[in-house]
């Protein structure tokens, strides 16, 4: 056993010696990007937007990593980006907490960080240079305002919440409740997590539709399009007309949801724009050139309903 240990030690020492004798092409801006995962159409669209934009720009060298929805993977990716010596790190955090240490490390190594899509909860705000993306609370508010404007003061809302504990689920709920707080006629009578997936969205909606309050539900607020699309199926199976008997509002704005609105099966989707590749790399180039950038850059987003969705809009939708 002793001999064995010596061999290992020697080998380890040898490998460490081989270290640090390679060079890299310094003309390009090396960007490390860590994506949450590939859990939805929306996420996939954002991944494609980033990869596509990077391929278009000759001065960008992208290292892309998919965290498979695990924070542990994401932290490993960021650490490895630091070691690899990228010029800029960008990532879309899985959750808000737990990134402080690794971001400090990036700061220590002098690598600027740009967040995309979601914010992180850190004690020193200078740990990241900029956040590009959506304001989940604002999205919830927009959905709430749409209900107020289009449904009126009397609405019994069933809510399909996202993954329990996730940032978009918490914030979208908060924003929506903020708006309806002052309107006693609008009540959330059912609220349950559908895990952001179609299968769960459908399953939970089925149970809503069989509850004693089923007949009162006239508005469905889903935290993402996938759950809403699942719920539409459940509503149809119950013999009700989605979009008419039950008004459907969701968030994200994916192509299949646009199609559903065009078909009259849903009413509104609050856009949460994933196509921010161009915006992201513009910011990265600026940071690399030493310019200052605003700490929060909202992405361009709208609210889509039957009024502004036409066949052309649907066909032109990238995702």
């Amino acid at each position, binding site marked *: 056993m002793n001999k064995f240990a010596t061999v290992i030690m020697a080998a380890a020492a040898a490998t460490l010696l081989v*270290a640090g004798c390679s060079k890299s092409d310094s003309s390009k801006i090396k960007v490390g990007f860590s994506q949450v995962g590939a859990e939805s159409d929306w996420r996939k669209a954002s991944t494609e937007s980033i990869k596509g934009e990077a391929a278009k720009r000759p001065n960008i060298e992208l290292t892309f990593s*998919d965290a498979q929805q695990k924070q542990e993977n994401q932290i490993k990716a960021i650490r490895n980006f630091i070691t690899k010596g990228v010029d800029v790190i960008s990532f879309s955090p899985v959750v*808000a907490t737990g990134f402080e240490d690794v971001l400090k490390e990036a700061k220590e190594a002098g690598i600027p960080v740009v967040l995309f899509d979601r914010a992180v909860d850190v004690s020193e705000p200078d740990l990241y240079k900029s956040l590009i993306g959506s304001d989940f609370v604002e999205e919830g508010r927009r959905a709430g305002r749409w209900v107020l404007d289009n449904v009126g003061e009397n609405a019994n809302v069933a809510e399909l919440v996202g993954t329990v504990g996730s940032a978009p689920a918490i914030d979208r709920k908060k924003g929506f409740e903020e708006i309806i707080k002052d309107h006693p006629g609008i009540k959330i009578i059912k609220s349950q997590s559908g895990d952001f997936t179609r299968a769960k969205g459908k399953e939970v909606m089925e149970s809503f539709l069989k509850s004693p309050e089923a007949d009162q539900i006239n508005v469905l607020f889903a935290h993402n399009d996938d759950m809403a699309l699942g719920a539409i199926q459940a509503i149809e199976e119950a013999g009700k007309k989605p979009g008419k008997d039950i008004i459907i509002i969701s968030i994200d704005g994916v192509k299949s949801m646009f199609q559903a609105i065009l078909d009259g099966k849903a009413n509104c989707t609050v856009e949460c724009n994933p196509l921010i590749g161009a915006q992201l790399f513009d910011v990265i180039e600026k940071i690399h050139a030493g310019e200052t950038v605003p700490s929060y850059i909202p992405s361009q987003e709208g609210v889509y309903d039957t009024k502004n969705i036409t066949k052309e809009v649907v066909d032109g939708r990238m995702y």
Partner: protein
Amino acid sequence: MKKFKFPMRYVPISATILVFFVVYLIGIISFDNFGSPKVFLDLFIDNAYLGIAVIGTALVILTGGIDLSVGSIIAFTSILIAKMIESGCNALWAIALALVIGILFGMLQGWLIHCFSLPPFLVTLAGMFFIRGCGFIVSEKSIPIKNDRVFDFIQNNLTVTLGKGLHLRFIVILYIVVLVIAIVFSQRTRAGRSIYAIGDNELAATLMGIPVGRTKILTYTIAGFCSALAGVVYAIYLKAGNPLNCVGLEMDAIAAVVIGGTLLTGGVGYVFGSLFGVLVLGLIQTLIIFDGRINSWWTRIIVGLLVLAFIFMQNLITKISKSKSKSH
């Protein structure tokens, strides 16, 4: 003169170490900065919690059992600590309570498994659901640990700086200490040897007068403790608790144990091997992150294939040594 023969039982663990260095070399050749000592150090920082959890899993697997509750206990422990600190409790008390819960939970699982001869797979599976749900009861949101004296102390005073950007963190030191204790425990103590005996042949162990029940319950208790300690390390690592974290970690842990050269039927293997099992898993991931072009789902596929390769190798070794013992 007796020719030196490499003992068969060292083959799997040497293969693991070989794989580790081969992967490392591939990385160094293909990528800039892969050879930097920071990669090596990061491997420990990022996998310390996994490593500690794997120690417990390895011991349980050595007895021929299995523990699926690992990932859930880590998540529960981290969120419990974060929640208690948030509500003004001293961090040391929170950590102590979390460890005690881990120990008791492991003991309960061991007791159910031994006393009612329920299958370990099932009991720990139920345990996994139970403790994960408990984590959500503590808090559905992730909670950051901020401005806590104990955590700041660990961060500022217990980190050894080796060079620019190179920090030997407390959690890495802790992992190595736990690993050494576990190695000594499994190789040099009566209880440790009993674990091997039970894993090899439970009936024979009983007949030899080894306290099978006590040892098994002890092993699950240690596993519970290791998982809870991994949770503490995780909380230190992230400075946060999140009930959603570490889903499916138990499978990574089992894969690491298998790659580390331990036979899943029990009785054969070394706790030391689990270190390299963990490092190989981490290194493959690092390699794929460094590359940044191939789909990261390949990590899973490669790990799957690696597990398969090791299983085949072990199978072969078992067969060879069996035929040898027959011919003697």
